C-alpha cells in the first residue's frame, strides 16, 4: 500500500475570480473561487491549489479574502501561490488558511526565501513552482507568470530548490499549458529521476489518457489541472478510476 496519487484542481484567480487562459494569455472569467473549491472537494479533489496569476506581474499580493473564504469552506490541503515575496507574505497566507504556499518568481530572485521559509514553517508547506519551456535540449525557467525568460535550467533549478528545503516541486510546462495536448512527460520523468521530493505535473491535460500517462510515463506524484475540471470536461472521479485500473493507488 502506498500513498494515493493526488489529483489537484487548480483555481487560477485574478481579482477574486477564477480565470483561465491558453498559453498564459487570452484570459476568460470562470466563476467564484470558493464555490469552485467546494465543488472540487465534493467531487473528490485531494488538494486545492489557488494561483493568483497576476500577483507577481502587477506587484500586488495575493487576495487574502479569497484564501479565507476558501479555507473556511474546504477541509482538504490548500496551496496558495502568486506574488509571495517574503516570510511575512507566507505567514499571512498560512494564517489566512493556506496549508502550503507555492513560490515561483521570488524564489528565483531570492533563493534564500525557500531556505528560510522551510526552516520556519517546515518543508511540507513550501512548494517551489516552476514555469518551464523547452529550448533545444533543455527546459528554460520563466518568471513573472511566464513573461520573462531566465538562463536557468528547470531540472537544475528544481534540484537546487530541493536542496534549499522545498517540500514539493510544481512544474508547469508552458509549451503544454492550456493546449490540452497531453503533459510534457519527458520533463516529469527527468524531474522524478532527479528528485527525492514529490513532483506535481501541470499543463496540458485534455484527455483521461493524458493524466494517466503523466503518472505512468512521467512518474508524477500528483496531477494539477485547471480547465478540464473547471469546465467539467473530465471528472476527478473518472481520472481516479482510470488510475486505479492501471494499478495506481487513489483515494476514491
Amino acid at each position, binding site marked *: 500500500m502506498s*500513498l494515493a496519487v493526488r489529483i489537484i484542481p487548480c483555481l487560477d484567480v485574478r481579482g477574486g475570480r477564477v480565470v483561465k487562459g491558453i498559453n498564459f494569455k487570452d484570459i476568460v472569467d470562470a466563476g467564484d473561487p470558493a464555490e469552485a473549491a467546494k465543488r472540487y472537494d465534493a467531487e473528490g479533489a485531494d488538494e486545492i491549489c489557488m494561483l493568483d496569476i497576476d500577483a507577481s506581474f502587477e506587484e500586488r499580493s495575493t487576495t487574502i479574502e479569497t484564501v479565507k473564504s476558501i*479555507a473556511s469552506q474546504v477541509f482538504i490541503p490548500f496551496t496558495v501561490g502568486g506574488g509571495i515575496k517574503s516570510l511575512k507574505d507566507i505567514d499571512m497566507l498560512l494564517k489566512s488558511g493556506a496549508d502550503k504556499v507555492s513560490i515561483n518568481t521570488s524564489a528565483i530572485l531570492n533563493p534564500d526565501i525557500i531556505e528560510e521559509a522551510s526552516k520556519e514553517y517546515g518543508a511540507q508547506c513550501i512548494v517551489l513552482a516552476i514555469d518551464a519551456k523547452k529550448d533545444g535540449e533543455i527546459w528554460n525557467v520563466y518568471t513573472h507568470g511566464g513573461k520573462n525568460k531566465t538562463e536557468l535550467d528547470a531540472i537544475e533549478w528544481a534540484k537546487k530548490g530541493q536542496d534549499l528545503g522545498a517540500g514539493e516541486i510544481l512544474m508547469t510546462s508552458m509549451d503544454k499549458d492550456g493546449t490540452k495536448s497531453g503533459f510534457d512527460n519527458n520533463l516529469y520523468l527527468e524531474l522524478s529521476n532527479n528528485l527525492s*521530493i*514529490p513532483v506535481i505535473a501541470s499543463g496540458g491535460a485534455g484527455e483521461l489518457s493524458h493524466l494517466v500517462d503523466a503518472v505512468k510515463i512521467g512518474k508524477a506524484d500528483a496531477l494539477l489541472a485547471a480547465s478540464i475540471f473547471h469546465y467539467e470536461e473530465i471528472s476527478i472521479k473518472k481520472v481516479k478510476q482510470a488510475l486505479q485500473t492501471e494499478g495506481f493507488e487513489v483515494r476514491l
Partner: protein
Amino acid sequence: MHLGVVDYGASNIHSVARALQSLGSKVSIVDTPDKFKSIDKLVFPGQGSMGSCIKKLNEKEMINSLMDAIKSKPFLGICLGLQILFNSSEESKEKGLGVINESITKIKDVNNENIKIPHMGWNNVKIEKKHELFSGIEDKQFFYFVHSFVASSTETSITTTYYGEEFVSSLATENIFATQFHPEKSGKIGLKFLENFINWKI
C-alpha cells in the same frame, strides 16, 4: 459544547478551529493556563518537533493546566498532539508528557521501498479496534498525513497505517484520543471523525 483548541505558539491551529466551527461548535483558543477551565473538550493540534513544543508550553506555563485537562476532559491530540503524549521521541532530547509509556521513532523503511520522508499525502487507515470516534466511518478510508516520526506500537492503538512500516495512526485510552493523521484536512470523512469527537460521551 464548548471546545478549546490549544495554541502554544508554533502550530497552525486555524484549520482545526475552522473545521470544528463548520460543524457548529463553539470554539475558543486556549493560549494561557487559565483558559483551560471554561472549556468542555480539548483539541491539541501540533506541528514541528516535540522538543520545541514542550519548550513553548513551558514558556507559557501551560504544562500543568494541560496535564489537568488531559486527565479530566475529552481530549483529542492531532499529529504532534499524539506524539507529545509519549515518554520521548527520537526527534528531541526533551521528554514528552509521559501519558503513554512508550517512545516515538523515525519512520523506518523496513521493506526497502525507497519511501520519501516526510510521509505526506493520503493513506489508508485500518481499523483494528472499534471506537466511537470511528462510528459511521468504514475500514480502510483515506486520511491526510504529514509527519516523519511515528508510534510503532502501543497497546492503546485503535487504527494502524502502513508507510515504510506499520504504525499507529490513532490511539485511545479512557478520555484521550489521538490521531497521527489530520482529520481537519481529510475532507468529508475527517469532518465525520471530528463530529464524532464533538458528540463523544465518556
